[in-house]
């Protein structure tokens, strides 16, 4: 394993030290692992998210004006613990209640649930929205359900904008829920990332093999297939999304790199996504192309499609100023 690290044990602490130095507008509690806005916004609904580390810039990179108030980064690919989420919740709370944005993984859901219970002991009202946009996993009440992946960014952005506008907790939660319900994602990996503590990649692929339907934790996908030209891969991903939620009207598209894939390839993927979507009579009204929710050094990409409404478009366009997303101010 070749990584730019001091040791597998210090990866997260070192990154948090870097985030703290790079972004003086954030307060980083390195010991307890909480990244929060340096200044509380009075009377605003607080937004908290968190999850395993290794997905940078998610979530710490989305803390700031117009988006999250605090983030709780766990160990690499491991959900944070309740105490930590509680601290983030306290940091985010200014009396108007706190929204927990939780990606749908058993560990995240359980740890956030416990934290919410602890917060209620503190008289902080917490509502949780669980994101589950990944169509690679079959959705069923008998299973753990779908994973939360790229759609989480959309949820954090529009919920953050709503809270910044002054919406109350229920409204913010309603908007977050709607953004999640209107978002779908699908990921394809060419090479698995390596968890520092594990020292070897999550899976091994032959030179011509790729994984279809991967999540964001270096796990294998729903099937293994052959490398194909980019337009076929993009078509595969969008077919899967379209089969679940027809792509129609104005859409937001995120072409997201897994961490080890260069931007030149992501722009190529976006070009194919636009061609596919326009070919299906819909319109790419908004977009993001880059590394927004990663899997360490994994090579691959995911596509997220959100069916926009006027409200979601307005909230997406609202000013945001965080380390990883910045516009309008």
């Amino acid at each position, binding site marked *: 394993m070749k990584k730019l690290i001091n040791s597998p044990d210090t990866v997260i602490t070192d990154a948090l030290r870097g985030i703290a130095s790079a972004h003086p507008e954030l307060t980083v509690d390195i010991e307890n692992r909480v990244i929060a806005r340096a200044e509380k916004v009075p009377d605003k609904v607080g937004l908290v998210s968190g999850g*395993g580390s290794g997905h940078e810039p998610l979530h710490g990179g989305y803390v700031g004006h117009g988006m999250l108030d605090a983030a709780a980064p*766990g*160990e*690499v*690919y*491991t*959900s*944070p*613990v*309740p*105490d930590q989420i509680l601290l983030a919740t306290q940091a985010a709370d200014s009396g108007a209640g706190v929204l927990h944005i939780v990606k749908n*993984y*058993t*560990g995240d859901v*359980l*740890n956030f*649930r*416990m934290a919410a219970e602890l917060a209620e002991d503190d008289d902080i009202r917490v509502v949780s929205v669980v994101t589950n946009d990944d169509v*690679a*996993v*079959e959705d069923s009440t*008998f*299973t*753990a359900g779908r*994973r939360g992946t790229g759609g989480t960014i959309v949820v954090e952005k529009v919920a953050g904008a709503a809270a910044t506008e002054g919406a109350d907790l229920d409204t913010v939660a309603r908007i977050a829920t709607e953004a999640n319900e209107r978002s779908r994602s699908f990921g394809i990996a060419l090479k698995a990332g390596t*968890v520092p*503590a*594990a020292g070897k990649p*999550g899976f091994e692929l032959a030179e011509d093999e790729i994984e279809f339907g991967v*999540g964001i*934790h*270096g*796990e*294998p996908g*729903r*099937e293994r297939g052959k490398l194909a030209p980019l337009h076929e891969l993009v078509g595969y991903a969008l077919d899967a999304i379209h089969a679940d939620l027809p792509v129609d009207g104005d859409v937001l598209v995120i072409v997201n790199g897994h961490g080890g894939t260069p931007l030149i390839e992501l722009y190529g993927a976006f070009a194919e996504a636009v061609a596919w979507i326009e070919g299906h009579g819909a319109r790419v009204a908004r977009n993001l192309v880059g590394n927004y929710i990663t899997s360490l050094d994994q090579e691959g990409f995911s596509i997220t499609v959100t069916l926009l409404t006027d409200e979601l478009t307005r909230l997406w366009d609202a000013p945001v100023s965080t380390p990883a997303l910045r516009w309008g101010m």
Partner: protein
Amino acid sequence: MIFDTQRAIAWINRIAELVRADVERLTTLDTAIGDGDHGANLDRGMTAAVDALAEKEPETPGKVLITAGRGLVSKTGGASGPLYGSGFRAAGKAMRDEGDVVALSDALEAMLRAIEELGGAHHEDKTMVDAFAPAVAAFQQAAGATADMHTAAVAAAEAAEAGLAATVPLQARKGRASYLGPRSVGHEDPGAASTVLIFRALADVTAE
């Protein structure tokens, strides 16, 4: 034999030892059908549990288990942290101070119920429940038949082991392995494997 404070502490310490010795195996199992952190998670959590007990030694076996559970919850992360953590806390709350085999049996059952309730997993969902449930059943049965704690614990460990083996052909319906769909078939569930360690540790510390 009494499941007193000392034995409860010994149990937690022994689990920590067995987990530490098997970190790599648990991680390898979790790499195959999960995200490769179960070994590290539980090692971190059990270390926290052991540290919590060392810091302020609780006075009753129940408080030992509650303290251990809190340590697990506060440091493990992942799915297994809340599940085992809440499980031990529930066991601790159910544990009666007399510490006889019936009290322990009830505590183990409470632990199972807490795990099932929090995680919502059922029989054959390919989770720790598939090792934990038969282990508790075997403990209860052996305890009823022999009233001997060690015999019951050994029976429980064996049943957990069998439950672990039985997870191999299953397709996961809960936890990360469920994302793999049919590709989750053919592997042991990592959480079921760590449950085996919990019961093996119990057999070890009740040996004499």
